[in-house]
Each structure stands twice: as structure tokens, then as C-alpha cells.
């Protein structure tokens, strides 16, 4: 046990159904230290938090808290012991007052056991004032901005005598002004000798607010050390699992402002897409036969961008033009009619319908054009399905097989087939090769190349830097919801992308 540590995690391991979520990870939190925890999807950040707060039990290793080994039964017990967690989504009751939320479950009562509202309001004002917030404590929480709500959550978490505060992406939905406010509170915690574990995707916040940083990658400890001694580029490279020196030797570093001249107007043009605070003035052109990559860290706005383009997420401002049709408000049905098709990031939640057959899954989106007066032509349907199963080399026993029985790679191909049935002009692929095996990955990458060659415009999102760099003709690098740089042709290298992210 490290002598001055408030919390020490030693060589914890956790295994979930065939996946090593955490593999011998260490973490030390000292009093008055703000410790950043960073890592891409699947790095093991959430699992680590859950091991600390008792949601999961480690398979091996131990958690020491204030000098003794602990194993909490759950977040409530952890909180009672002084480890408070502030979740990404505000976990309060929006229709109650600010004061009500602060004191829910421990309202001050008079000698008859009745709530003393006046005292509750006064104490609520005092507590919030300590964090520099003046707000009518009687106003309904849901009517206030997310920043204030988050601050109330923080204040509530701290009202219990906390020694450790875990903040899980606390700024992901906050405006810049609100972020400042939150970081001020973090500073206050530091002064009060609280140990803060600050989970974030935003490099700026790491360098602004944190003393130490721990990087997790694929469940392993990739780096831990002083923030002051950490180079931004190296931090990005560590998160993405690339070797800076290797990239530096092999990559060209010339930025080109020269635009790729494709024949004719773009098939897809998005201009000024804005959705506060996650998306700021993002513009995107896709020409026929071109693969446009979207790169950036998790939470940088890649998925939000394509969802906005596809009309699956609302925007505050911006227009999308597809095939000459220009619209302010899209919805997915209109986008599909206009010639867009999207394979979403989360196959399970937004894509395949596991209990339906391969055949039904493929033709789902194409049903309107396969049917006459509501009746589906069985022959045309079978024909179409056979074509795609063969063309995409989907490995199935028969088209009647249920999709849940297929491997991840084949499920992804089923989704691709479903979209290709619609004869789109532009295909949007969000993480098309995540979680699928190497062979299928190569096949899908080859397929993307083929499709572009045949004149399809492709928007490709991938956390796999190599995939974006090698697959795309043009790369938009996003950072904090805005386009931080555009790379063309030979300028597209892994190092160049990382430089833009770190800049």
C-alpha cells in the first residue's frame, strides 16, 4: 500500500464472457489530486469505476481505501464510506426543486418529523453559494441548464463527507461556460484534499485540470504519469495504440490545402451542422466514388455528425443537400429517399433485428419498393437476397437462418446488404469493423473499396486510425464537435491525424 494514497487499486483483473475487460490494472489516487482517466471505447474505464464502487467484483487484485482493503456491496455503500460518483447523465429528479434534489432522503425536519422547508432552502442556498452558484433553490431542476443540474449533482454528492469523487465524463453535455464552472469546483475539491478521478475524452480538460493521467487501452494500463511531463501527441498515440516514433518515421507530414477535384458536384453536401454543445459548424462534402473518413477521439462528434446528416438527430442549424435536394430538416425516411443509407455504430441496438431471418433483415428497408399495393413479391425478394448473400459473401446456412446466430462480421454484412438494396448514392458507415474478426474485417474493407470504385460515395467513421488513413481519400478530423482539420491525399497519415487531434 502506497503510504499517502486515499485509494489504491492493485493489479485488478476482470473477465466478462470471453473478454478480458481489465488486465492487471493499477491506479493510485492521492488526497488533493485530480487524476485523469482516459481511453477509447472498450478500454476498461467503466469497468474500473464499477470495480471501485462495488458494482462488479474483481476476479483478482484488490482495492484499498484509506489504508484498508474494501469490497463494497454497491454504489450506496461506497458513497456511505465516502466515495461519491457523479454520472455522465444527471441522475436527479427533474420535476422537483433544486433544494428538494439536494436534500432528497435527508431533508431537515422539525421535532414533529415534518420537513422544515425554510431551513432546507436556506441550507441549499448556502451549499450552492459555496460552489459559486446563485440560483433560486425553489425552481424546478429540469428548467435549469444542464450545467447547473450537473453542479447540483456534484453538490449533492459532496454533501456527504466524500474523500474520493469519481466524475464520469461530467462535461460531455455542458456548454463551455458551464465547463468552467465545473472545473472551478474540481479545483475547490483539490483544495479540500479530496481525491478526484476525472474520466474524460477531452484532452484540453486533462491538461487544464489534472495533475496525473492514466491511459487504459484494451483493458491494460497503457500509461500513467504526471500530466506536466506528458506530451499531447504522445498521449493521443497512447490512447489510440499507435507508436509515435514509428508513425513519424513512416508517415509523410505535408498538409495540403489543395482540394481533390472530382468530376461534377458533390452527391452529398452538409453545411454548418450545429447542435449545441456537441456539434459546431460541421461541413462535409462527398463526391461520387470518394471515401471520406471522419477521425477523432471518442466524443469528438463523429457519430453526431453522421446522425445529423442522416436526419436521425436534431440540429439547431445547418443544411444537408443530397442529390440536389436541399433540406433544413431531414428525417431518416427522407434521407433514404434522397439516396442516403447508414449502417449505425451500434449493430445490436440500432441495426439488426436478431430474431428475424437473414432474408427478412436484408429486405426490411427495401420492402416498399418490393411490394405492390402492400403485397410483397416472394420471388423478387428471394432473388434480391440471393444476389447480396453471394455478392457480400455472407456465410449463412440458408437465408432463413436467424441473424442472431451469425458472427459479428456476417451480421455487419447483412446490414450492409440491407442498405445496398436501396441503391444509395452515399453510404454512411459508422464503425463498420468494430468487434468483428480479422478476416471479416479485411473483407468489409475490400468491399468498401469496391463500392467506391463503382461510384458510391462513402462516409467512413472508424476508431481504428489505420482503417481511416488507408481507406479514405479525404479525412475530416473532428475535435470537441468541430472540424479541426482536413487532410487530403498524401497528407493523410496517422501522425497527421494525431497532430490535429492533439493541437
Amino acid at each position, binding site marked *: 500500500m502506497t503510504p499517502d494514497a486515499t485509494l489504491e487499486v492493485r493489479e485488478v483483473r476482470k473477465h466478462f464472457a470471453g473478454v478480458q475487460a481489465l488486465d492487471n490494472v493499477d491506479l493510485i489516487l492521492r488526497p488533493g489530486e485530480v487524476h485523469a482517466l482516459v481511453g477509447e471505447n472498450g478500454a476498461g474505464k467503466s469497468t474500473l469505476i464499477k470495480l471501485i464502487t462495488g458494482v462488479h467484483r474483481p476476479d483478482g487484485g484488490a482495492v484499498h481505501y484509506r489504508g484498508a482493503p474494501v469490497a463494497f456491496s454497491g*454504489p*450506496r455503500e461506497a*458513497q456511505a464510506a465516502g466515495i461519491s460518483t457523479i*454520472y455522465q447523465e444527471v*441522475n*436527479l*429528479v*427533474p*420535476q*422537483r426543486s*433544486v433544494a*428538494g434534489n439536494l436534500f*432528497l*432522503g435527508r*431533508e431537515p*425536519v422539525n421535532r414533529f*418529523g*415534518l*420537513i422544515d*422547508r425554510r431551513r432546507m432552502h436556506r441550507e441549499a442556498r448556502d451549499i450552492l453559494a459555496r460552489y*459559486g*452558484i*446563485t*440560483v*433560486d433553490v*425553489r*425552481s424546478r431542476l*429540469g*428548467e*435549469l*441548464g444542464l450545467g*447547473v443540474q450537473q453542479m447540483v449533482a456534484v453538490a*449533492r454528492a459532496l454533501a456527504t463527507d466524500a474523500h474520493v469523487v469519481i466524475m464520469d465524463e461530467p462535461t460531455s453535455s455542458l456548454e463551455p461556460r458551464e465547463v468552467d*464552472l465545473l472545473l472551478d469546483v474540481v479545483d475547490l475539491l483539490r483544495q479540500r484534499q479530496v481525491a478526484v478521478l476525472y474520466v474524460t475524452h477531452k484532452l484540453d480538460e486533462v491538461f487544464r485540470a489534472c495533475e496525473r493521467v492514466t491511459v487504459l487501452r484494451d483493458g491494460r494500463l497503457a500509461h500513467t504519469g504526471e500530466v506536466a511531463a506528458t506530451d499531447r501527441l504522445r498521449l493521443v498515440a497512447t490512447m489510440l495504440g499507435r507508436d509515435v516514433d514509428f508513425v513519424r518515421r513512416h508517415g509523410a507530414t505535408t498538409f495540403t490545402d489543395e482540394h481533390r477535384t472530382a468530376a461534377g458536384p458533390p452527391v452529398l453536401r452538409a453545411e454548418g451542422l450545429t447542435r449545441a454543445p456537441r456539434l459546431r459548424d460541421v461541413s462535409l462534402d462527398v463526391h461520387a466514388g470518394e471515401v471520406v473518413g471522419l477521425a477523432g477521439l471518442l466524443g469528438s462528434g463523429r457519430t453526431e455528425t453522421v446522425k445529423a446528416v442522416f436526419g436521425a438527430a436534431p440540429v439547431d442549424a445547418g443544411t444537408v443537400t443530397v442529390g440536389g435536394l436541399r433540406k433544413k430538416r431531414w428525417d431518416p425516411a427522407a434521407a433514404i429517399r434522397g439516396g442516403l443509407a447508414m449502417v449505425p455504430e451500434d449493430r445490436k441496438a440500432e441495426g439488426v433485428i436478431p430474431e428475424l431471418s437473414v432474408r427478412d433483415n436484408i429486405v426490411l428497408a427495401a420492402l416498399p419498393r418490393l411490394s405492390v399495393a402492400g403485397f410483397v413479391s416472394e420471388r423478387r425478394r428471394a432473388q434480391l437476397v440471393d444476389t447480396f448473400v453471394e455478392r457480400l459473401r455472407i456465410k449463412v446456412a440458408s437465408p432463413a437462418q436467424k441473424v442472431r446466430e451469425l458472427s459479428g462480421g456476417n451480421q455487419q454484412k447483412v446490414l450492409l446488404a440491407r442498405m445496398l438494396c436501396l441503391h444509395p448514392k452515399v453510404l454512411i458507415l459508422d464503425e463498420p469493423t468494430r468487434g468483428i474478426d480479422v478476416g471479416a474485417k479485411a473483407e468489409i474493407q475490400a468491399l468498401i473499396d469496391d463500392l467506391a470504385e463503382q461510384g458510391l460515395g462513402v462516409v467512413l467513421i472508424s476508431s481504428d486510425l489505420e482503417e481511416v488513413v488507408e481507406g479514405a481519400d479525404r479525412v475530416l478530423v473532428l475535435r470537441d464537435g468541430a472540424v479541426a482539420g482536413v487532410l487530403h491525399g498524401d497528407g493523410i497519415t496517422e501522425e497527421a491525424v494525431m497532430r490535429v487531434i492533439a493541437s
Partner: protein
Amino acid sequence: MTTFGLAVPRWRVDRAGAPIVLGLVVLAGAAVFGGSFAGGQNLGNIALDASYLLLIATGMTFVILSGGIDLSVGSLLALSGVLTAYGARWGTLTAVALPLAVCAVFGVVNGLLIGRARIAPFIVTLAALLFARGFAFAVADEGNRVYIIPAGLTLTRLGQARWLGLGAPVWLALAVFAGGLVLLNLTRFGQATFAVGDNQEAAELMGLPVARVRVLVYVISAVLTGVAGVLVAAQTQSGLPTIGEGRELEAIAAVVIGGTLLSGGAGSLSGTLAGVLLLKVIQNLINQVGTLTAYYQQVVSGTFLVVVVLIQLRLARRRRV
């Protein structure tokens, strides 16, 4: 220092809607029908009629605020009445204690199935609706037997007593309502009831006794319905297994018209009081118009319900933006 939110308390249209409409309807009624509507005799009748519904709707408000629904109250009303009449042979104490005890058991079972076993409130209380109605008929020998409460019994005298022009049930209902106000607004249980209905997951993470709250609201609902059943039996000096059909929907309508969100988490008991009075005043006014049948009351109530829910939706949407 930064200031957020609105320092000025805002005029709450969603809360004030039912009382405003109630005021307008009462004024209109007085203008059109004069003394036959606004006279003491008629107003006393409205109050008596409303008192049973107020008891049930008070409990229903707790249930709906917690994010649930209680469909069993109409049947429980009948069961309670039958048990009151059945128990009257052993005196007033039994006539009151027996139905209340049985209703409490119904409430506890409903609550445990919903709060602990996590079965949907709709299903659980629908089952209780069938069960209680069947039980009431069984006790009354398939409805062939009507237990009469002796006129000389203390219960009968109390049930039919009048003070200051208002019947005993009215005073009792008002007392219960006042108790409900305190329980809902000034106790931790009341605050937790709102929280559970608003965001159950958050309530759990905040360490609130979610399951206990969900059990208790159904106990409150069932026991208050039991009280209403005792009062109905005392008024009519008998227990009929057929009464109370559709009362659960009337109570839900009163709660929702009173501005409580059917999805839970927001609303008020004072709104429920206005909702109850509004339904009963409209019913009374339509009875005053000799040419209209009583069914028009349901037409009007139905219309009100839709309008109120529409307004709630609009307000809820504006809040979210």
C-alpha cells in the same frame, strides 16, 4: 458569481387549470340555475357526493405520483361496503375494522407485487379488481343477499349525521385530505413519492427506499377506498356488491384533470380536490337540465380529460426545450 434560473416564482398554468375552470363552471351554474344550483341544500349534496370520490382520489394521487396506477379501487369500494354491512351484526367496531383490515391486506399485496416483485401496476391492480369484485359477490351470496345495517347502530347515526349543513363523510374526507396534504408535502415519504415517479433509477441511486414507497402508496390507496366504502354503507344502510363500477376511472380522471401527470412525478393534491369537485359539479349541473340524461356528464368529463392531457403534453414539451 453567476445567477441561473428564474428568481420570480412563475404562474403555474398546469397547476391552476382545474381550479380556474371549476370557478367558471360554478359561476355559470349559479347564473343559469340560481338557487336550485347554488342553494345550500344542493351544494351540500354535491359535497356529500364528492366526499367519497375525494377519499379515493386522494389515495390515487399518491399512487399516480409514484408512477403507478390503481385499478382495483372501484371493486374494493364494493367489497368494503359489503364487509361493513356483514360485520355490522357484531357492532360498529367490527363494521369498521373488518373492511379496513381487508382493504389494507389488498393494499399490501398490491404493493408487494408491484414494489418488490416488480410486476406492472396495471396488471396487478387489474387482478385485484377482479379478485375484490368476486370476493364481494361471494360474501353477498352472489348478490342474492343484502346485509342491512341496523338503523340504531352507532355507525349509521355517525354516517348520517350532519354538522354545519354538511354530512359527516364530507368532514371526514376533508380531514383525510388535510392529512394527505401534510403527508405528501411535509414528510420524507411524500418527497420520495414524487422522486420515485419522476426518475426511479435516480431515486435508487440517491439511496431512497424505492420499494417501500411503492408498497405504501398502494396501502394508502386501498385503505382510503376502504374508508369510502364504510361511509357509503353507513349512508345507504346496506352493502351492495354491484356498486363502484368504473369508480377507478372516475378517480383517475379527477387526478389527471387536477394536473397530476399520469406518468408520475409531478402534480398536487389540491389539484385533485379541484378535479373531484369539477366532475361532481358538472354532473350536478347536467342533472339540473331536465332534458339531458346523466350520460352527458360522462361526455363532458371525457372531453375535459382530453383537453387537460393535451395541455399537460404541451407544457411538458415546452419544459423540455
